C-alpha cells in the first residue's frame, strides 16, 4: 500500500521522502487497523472456516473430520427443507422487492405532490419502518389472526372473505408482504430525494410537447430514477436473501406451539411456507447441530449474495467509487 498525502508535491527522491512514505504507510495502517483486524476476524476467518466445515462431519462435540461432498449431497438431494426454502426465498425476492419498490415510488410521489400536510404524511409513512421487526411481526400476527384479529373481523363484516393469513400456506407469504410494505418508509424517502431532483424544466418541456402524465412519468421520471431503482433492486434482493426474523417469529407465534423445553419447533409454519434459507442455517446448525450441512447452506447464501454484490459494484461502479 503506497500511501501518499492527499496532494503530494513532487520532489526529487530523497531520504526525507522515504521517511515520509514509511510514515504514510504507518499512518494508513494506524487508521485502518481496527477495520483490517475486524475484516480478518469477522469476515475472512469465518468465511474460510465455513467453506472448510462444509466438507466435514462435525456435531460440535467430536472434532470435525473430512467428509468430502456428503453434506452437499445431503442438502441438495435429501434435506427436505432446502428446495422449499430456496423457492420461498426466490418468491420473496421477486414479489416482495417488486412490490416494495412500487409502493415506495407511489408513496414518494404522493407525498411530493400533496400540497397540504405532506410532512405529516411523510412522518406517518416513514414511522412503521422503524418498528422493531419482532414487534411489528407480533402485531401483524395478532391483527391478521383469522379467529380473533380485527382485520378479518372488518373483512368479514364487509363480506370480503376471510383469508387464513399466517395460518394458511397460501396466505402466509402475502401476509409477510403486507408487513414488509408497512415498513416501506426507507425506500419512500430515498425515492423522494431523487424525485425532487428531477429538473423541473424537463417536465415543462414534455408538457409543452403535449405529453400526458403517464408519458411524462415514462420518459422523464423513470430515466432519471434509473440508478436509484437499480440500487433499490439490488439492495432489496440482498436484504431479502437475509430475510429471517419476520418469517421466523410469524411462523413460531402463529403456529401456537411453544418453543419451550421438550418441544422442537416445526420450521416454516404453516406447511413450510415461511421457511427461508437463513432459517435453515439455524435449523441445521443450532438445532440439529449438523454443522457441516449448515455450512453448505451458508455457502449457498454467500455465493448468491456475492453475485448480487458484484452486480451492484459493476453496474454501479460509477457511484460506488465516486471520488472527490
Amino acid at each position, binding site marked *: *500500500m503506497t500511501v501518499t498525502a492527499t496532494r503530494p508535491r513532487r520532489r526529487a527522491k530523497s531520504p526525507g521522502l522515504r521517511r515520509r512514505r514509511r510514515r504514510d504507510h504507518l499512518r494508513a495502517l494506524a487508521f485502518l487497523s481496527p477495520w483490517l483486524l475486524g475484516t*480478518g476476524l469477522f469476515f475472512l476467518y469465518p468465511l474460510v472456516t465455513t467453506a472448510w466445515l462444509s466438507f466435514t462431519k462435525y456435531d460440535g462435540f467430536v472434532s470435525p473430520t473430512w467428509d468430502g461432498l456428503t453434506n452437499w449431497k445431503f442438502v441438495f438431494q435429501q*434435506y427436505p427443507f432446502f428446495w422449499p426454502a430456496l423457492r420461498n426465498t426466490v418468491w420473496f425476492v421477486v414479489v416482495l422487492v417488486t412490490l416494495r419498490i412500487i409502493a415506495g415510488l407511489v408513496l414518494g410521489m404522493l407525498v411530493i405532490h400533496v400540497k397540504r400536510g405532506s410532512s405529516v404524511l411523510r412522518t406517518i409513512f416513514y414511522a412503521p419502518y422503524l418498528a422493531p421487526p419482532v414487534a411489528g411481526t407480533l402485531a401483524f400476527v395478532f391483527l391478521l389472526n383469522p379467529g*380473533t384479529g380485527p382485520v378479518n373481523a372488518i373483512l368479514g363484516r364487509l363480506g370480503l372473505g376471510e383469508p387464513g393469513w399466517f*395460518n394458511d400456506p397460501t396466505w402466509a407469504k402475502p401476509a409477510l408482504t403486507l408487513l414488509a410494505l408497512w415498513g416501506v418508509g426507507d425506500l419512500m424517502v430515498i425515492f423522494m430525494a431523487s424525485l425532487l431532483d428531477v429538473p423541473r424544466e424537463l417536465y415543462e418541456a414534455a408538457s409543452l410537447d403535449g405529453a400526458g402524465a403517464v408519458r411524462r412519468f415514462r420518459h422523464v421520471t423513470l430515466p432519471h430514477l434509473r440508478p436509484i431503482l437499480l440500487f433499490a433492486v439490488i439492495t432489496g434482493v440482498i436484504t431479502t436473501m437475509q430475510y429471517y426474523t419476520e418469517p421466523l417469529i410469524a411462523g413460531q407465534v402463529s403456529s*401456537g406451539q*411453544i418453543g419451550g*423445553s421438550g*418441544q422442537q419447533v416445526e420450521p416454516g409454519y404453516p406447511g413450510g411456507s415461511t421457511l427461508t434459507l437463513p432459517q435453515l442455517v439455524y435449523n441445521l446448525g443450532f*438445532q440439529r447441530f449438523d454443522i457441516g450441512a449448515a455450512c453448505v447452506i451458508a455457502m449457498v447464501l454467500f455465493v448468491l449474495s456475492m453475485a448480487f454484490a458484484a452486480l451492484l459494484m459493476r453496474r454501479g461502479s460509477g457511484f460506488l467509487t465516486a471520488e472527490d
Partner: protein
Amino acid sequence: MTGPRHLRRRIAGCAMLASLALALTACFGSSKGGANDNPDADVTITFWHGWSAPNEVGAINANIAAFEKKYPNITVKAVGNITDDKINQALRAGGPNAPDVVSSFTTDNVGEFCDSKAFVDLAPFMQKDGIDPKTTFPPAQLSYTQYNGDQCALPLLSDAYGLYYNKDMFNAAGISSPPKTLSEFDADAVKLTKQSGDTYSQLGFMPDYHGYESTITHFASQWSPTYFTSAGKSNVADDAGIKAAFEWQKALVGKLGGYSRLEKYRTTFGDEFSNNNPFMTGQVAMAIDGEWRAGMIDDSNSKVSYGVAPFPVPDSMASQYGKGYITGTIVGIASTSQKQNAAWEFVKFMTTDTDAVVSFANAIHNVPSTIAALASPKVSQDPNFQQFIKIAANPNSNTTPSSPNGGAYQLTLQNLGYNYESGKQADLQSGLEATAKTIDNDIAQAQ
C-alpha cells in the same frame, strides 16, 4: 523499504495467521470436565431446567432449598425456562457459564446426549453410592433414560397422557361415562360439537395436529406402534398402527366439520400453558393432555368441572383400555462440568430421595419416578391424579424411542401429519414411505 505489494501480502499473511490460530483453537479446544472435585468443599453448581410457570418454579426452588439445607456446602444456581435448543448449545460450549446439571422435558434427546458423551455415564456414581437402578426406578422410566446400555440420565418425575373431559358438557349432551374406544370417542366428540356459522360455539375435541397435545405420536401410542426396526431403520411405512392413527385422525377431522373450519377455530385459542387454554375456557369439551393440566386447572380460577380417564383405544384393542403415552423429565450431568461429584449429590437427591420426589411431584402434579415414591402414602390421593398414576403403571403404556438424532424423526412424522390433515398429501402410504426415507436419511447424516 517495503514495496507496496510486499506489504500487502504481509498484511494478508498476518490476517490469515490470526485466522488459522483461531481456527485451530476453535475446532479442537473444547474443555474437558472431570469427576475429581471434592463434593464436601464449598461449591456452586448451575442447574438448568425448563419450568417457567410460577407455581412450578416455586416448587423446584423449594426442593433446591431442601437440598441446600441437607448439603450446606453446595449452592445450586437454578436457571429456568431453558429450551432444548439452548441445552444442546450449552453442552457443546462448556465454560464457566455452562450448566453442571441439566434437565429436559423430553426423553427425545437422551440418545444424542449419550451417544456424543455430552452427559456422563451415571453408573459409576450409582455404584459408588450403592444405588441399584433396577430396584429404584420403574422399568419404563429406566429404559428411556438409557441408550445402548449407558445410564446417562435419570428420570425426574414422569408424565402420562390421558383424556380430560368437561363433566357439565357431558351431562348436557347426555353422555354418562367417558368413552373407552375410539368409535365411542368419535360419536361423543360429534355429539359435543355445536357449530355456529362458520365456526363453533363448542367443539367436542380438537384433533388438528397443531391443537396443542394432539400430536401424532400421542395418538399413535394407543396403537402401541414400532417406530424403528431392530436394524435401526424407520418402520413408519410398515407399521399398521401408525397408519391407522393417521387415518383415524383424518376421519375425525371430517366428522367435526373439516380441516379449515377447525383450523380457524383453533386460532381463537389462548396459549396452551396460560389460563386461557381452550379446555379451561370451555372452548373444547375433551382434550388429550398430561397430568399437569389437572394441577393447572386447580390452581387457576377456571370454573371447568372436569374428569379424567385413560385416552380411548382402537376398537380392536379394547382389552388394552387404560394405557396411554408416557414420557418424562430427565436429568443428567454435563460432561464439561468441573464439579461432577457435587452435581451428582444434587442429582441423587432430586431423583432418588423419596421425600424430595414426592413433594416435588405433588407440587407440580407430576407422576413420581421412583418405585418407593410411587408407593409412598404421601403421594396425592386425589382421584384425578391417581388415574394418571395408573396410566403410568399400565404395562401397555408406551413412549417414543430415542434415536441418534433426538426427536427429529417425530418432527418429520408430524410434518406428514400436517400435510395429510390439510389434504396436501392425499396418498397416505406414499407419504409414509417418503417420511421413512427422510427419517433414514437424517439418521444416516447424523451418524
